[in-house]
């Protein structure tokens, strides 16, 4: 079994007086895809934001690539090789596709091939045709692809992917699944938050289930699919 690239221990976080996470622990192994499942408001996005430093953790530890990153500013965490793809896309709409990619560009770790726009266009062929176009003139699905491509330009070792399938047309969801699998092929570990069990089952090796800020289930993706009780209790709406 591969070693963990990301380890989260007893993470607490919240917004103002509202506490959202109550001691979340999880880990992500090198090169695997893990899904963090749960309903709306369960704490999925909050977990990813707290790992990335976008929301200051109020307790617990986060280790990435053997280094304690708890409480570091987001740019330091990103520079260590942890990428983040936000739920709301957050594309720079005034910039062209090419310029969006430029913002994400960082030199790769020694000895690794760098992602270039040209290489990314093989993964996301749609983007190639519109490299000079303003991001505001793209469809939601295209923007979602662009956010992932933008994060990959930083040559991350692992990526936090927040609700990648949300609000996308079925055909785009399929492309998204292909993109996640391609990232896995490239050796990038992915922790994605997801409500859509089918999507998660198609891409993830392991799953965590979060409810009210606590992890209620962890195990192989197949085990979650087989466990009707857990699915009933925490996932079905």
């Amino acid at each position, binding site marked *: 079994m591969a070693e963990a690239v990301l380890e989260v221990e007893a993470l607490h976080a919240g917004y*103002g*007086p509202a506490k959202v996470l109550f001691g979340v622990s999880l880990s992500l192994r090198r090169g695997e895809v893990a899904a963090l499942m749960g309903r709306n408001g369960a704490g999925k996005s909050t977990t990813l934001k707290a790992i*990335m430093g*976008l929301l200051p953790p109020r307790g617990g530890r986060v280790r990435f690539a053997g280094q304690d990153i708890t409480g570091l*500013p*987001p*740019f330091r965490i*990103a*520079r260590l090789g942890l990428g*983040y793809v*936000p739920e709301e896309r*957050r594309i*720079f*709409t*005034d*910039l062209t596709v090419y*310029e*969006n990619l*430029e*913002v*994400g560009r*960082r030199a790769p770790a020694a000895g690794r091939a760098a992602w270039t726009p040209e290489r990314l266009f093989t993964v996301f062929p749609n983007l190639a045709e519109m490299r000079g176009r303003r991001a505001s003139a793209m469809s939601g699905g295209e923007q979602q692809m662009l956010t992932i491509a*933008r*994060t990959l330009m*930083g040559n991350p070792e692992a990526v936090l992917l927040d609700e990648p399938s949300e609000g996308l047309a079925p055909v785009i969801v399929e492309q998204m699944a292909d993109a996640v699998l391609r990232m896995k092929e490239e050796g990038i570990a992915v922790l994605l938050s997801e409500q859509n069990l089918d999507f998660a089952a198609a891409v993830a090796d392991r799953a965590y289930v979060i409810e009210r800020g606590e992890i209620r289930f962890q195990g192989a993706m197949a085990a979650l699919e087989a466990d009707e009780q857990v699915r009933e209790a925490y996932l079905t709406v």
Partner: protein
Amino acid sequence: MDFSFVVVQALSGLASASSLFVIASGLTLVFGVTRIVNFAHGSFYMLGAYIAVTVVPWLLEIDRSPWLFFVGVLVSAVAVGILGVVMEVLLLRRIYKVPELFQLLATFGVVLMVQDAVLKIWGPVDITGPRAPGLRHGVEILGQRFPAYELFLIFVGPAVLGLLWLLMHRTRFGILIRAATRDREMVGALGVNQALLFTGTLFLGAFLAGLGGALQIPRVSASAQMDLSIITEVFVVTVIGGMGSVTGAFLAAVLIGQLQAFGVLVFPKITLVLVFLLMAAVLVVKPWGLLGKPEAAAGRAALPEGILNPARFAAVEKGLLALSVTALLALPFFGSAYTMKVATEVLVFALAAFSLNFLVGNGGIVSFGHAAYFGLGAYAAGLLVVKAGVPMEPALVAAPVVAGLFAALFGFFVVRLSGIYLAMLTLAFAQIAYAVCFQWVEFTGGDNGVVGVWPSAWAASRHVYFYVVAVLVVAAILALRHVVYAPFGATLRAARDSEQRADAIGVDVRVHRWLGFTLAGAAAGLAGGLYAFSKGSIDPTMLGIPMSVDFLAMILLGGIQTVMGAVVGAAAFHAIKDVFMPLTDFWRFFLGASIIALVLIFPRGLGGAYAALRRQPGVVRA
């Protein structure tokens, strides 16, 4: 008006537009990335001019070549850019997340400090700069002589626009700046060190302001008043163009340059008013400016805070209140005439500050021009007494009525906006009022104002007048306080916290805000009227930006989260100013430093600290 004259006039308008654009582009860039409206941008402009009138003659001593002139201009701009970096590292970095009102105040603190620093270094006398070698002659255009330097300036604006375009689109730094203008947190999550990006932006912004100032030296002499006069014009340019948009700033600068060049022919006295009218008109049609984006104003990390829990007085506080009212009433029995004057002013400012916090704390309407209504009340009362021979009593009725009418007029436009645009528009209206009082010499006495505004004979003694003020101020504050607790006040708070939700439950947010704005203006007008009779005179400083900032500092000191904090803040602020001003020639420096210190270490004010103690002793909520 013949054709050649029109052409020359248009050209000189373009030259002014060019200078204005160079300065405004820096402000708009800095705002785009940091979301801070930097009052000190005008100070950078002034420093650029002062450094240039020092450096350029020194260089021209070596050799009177045109090249050395421009080397000197660039050196000055770079020096100012470095000062911008210093300001970012020492101050701005610490206030990116505080509400915009505090940011405006803190940067205004820098304005005050720089003013005194400039007076200390360069002295109070204006300094005339050298003319540019090689560009001193006039050029013949359609039979009219036009200065070559002005012609050169016309090309500077488009050149700077072009260079900025290249920088923003062809360099990584520029692309990052544009991305950060959209979403700076996301830029950080992609591994970009925002601190460096912000420092770089401040360098660029201050450099452009410094360049604008240094290029002015052959046209205008360096003086200690250039900071505030340019900053309002530059605010107007950036607001009309759309905050954060460089191209918008260019368009707006050209518009304003032409408006001034031709407006001066038609209405020589009210060119300033024309500019602000243009701004008001643009904002009514396009609330985010010509090329601005609504997102640039919304979606801030920190929303303006305000009165959270309008607690009623506890038993102890009732006792305290009774004690202070008794002390107030007893004061004339042992106070000297000077004590009475100070006490009267404290009361007047308490009402002005209370009415401002009624807007800011209760309504979330961050007015940056509240002094306008204070001053309009003072002018209404003063002019009635001196010019029309009306006695004090009706004049004191007229003060709140006139101020309230103007607040209703200006407020009609103001409440259509929100956030930083709203603050800028209130500032613009205040500057219109200021400009009229300053420029309409025959009616208002201009810069000197009007003297002889004295109370009626029965209230002539300082002690009696104090009682008049005390009764009116306490009554007005109690009335306003009553409104805070009334459903109207609660509705304003609801609209402050979520305009959409208030709207959805059937509240006409605009009408409520409009009424609130008018009411606050009328209360400030009463304070102004009382102040005029206390001082015995009126003058334009009563409606100037520094006065508005004083009021804001008072409510900040008192704490905008509390209902009564403004009163405490007014007393404390006036006391501090009264102690500092006679002690030192550098009172502005200390005042600025105190405002900055207040924002940095005491952002909830005295009242906020007390409220936190009351809620939960020893625990201040984060």
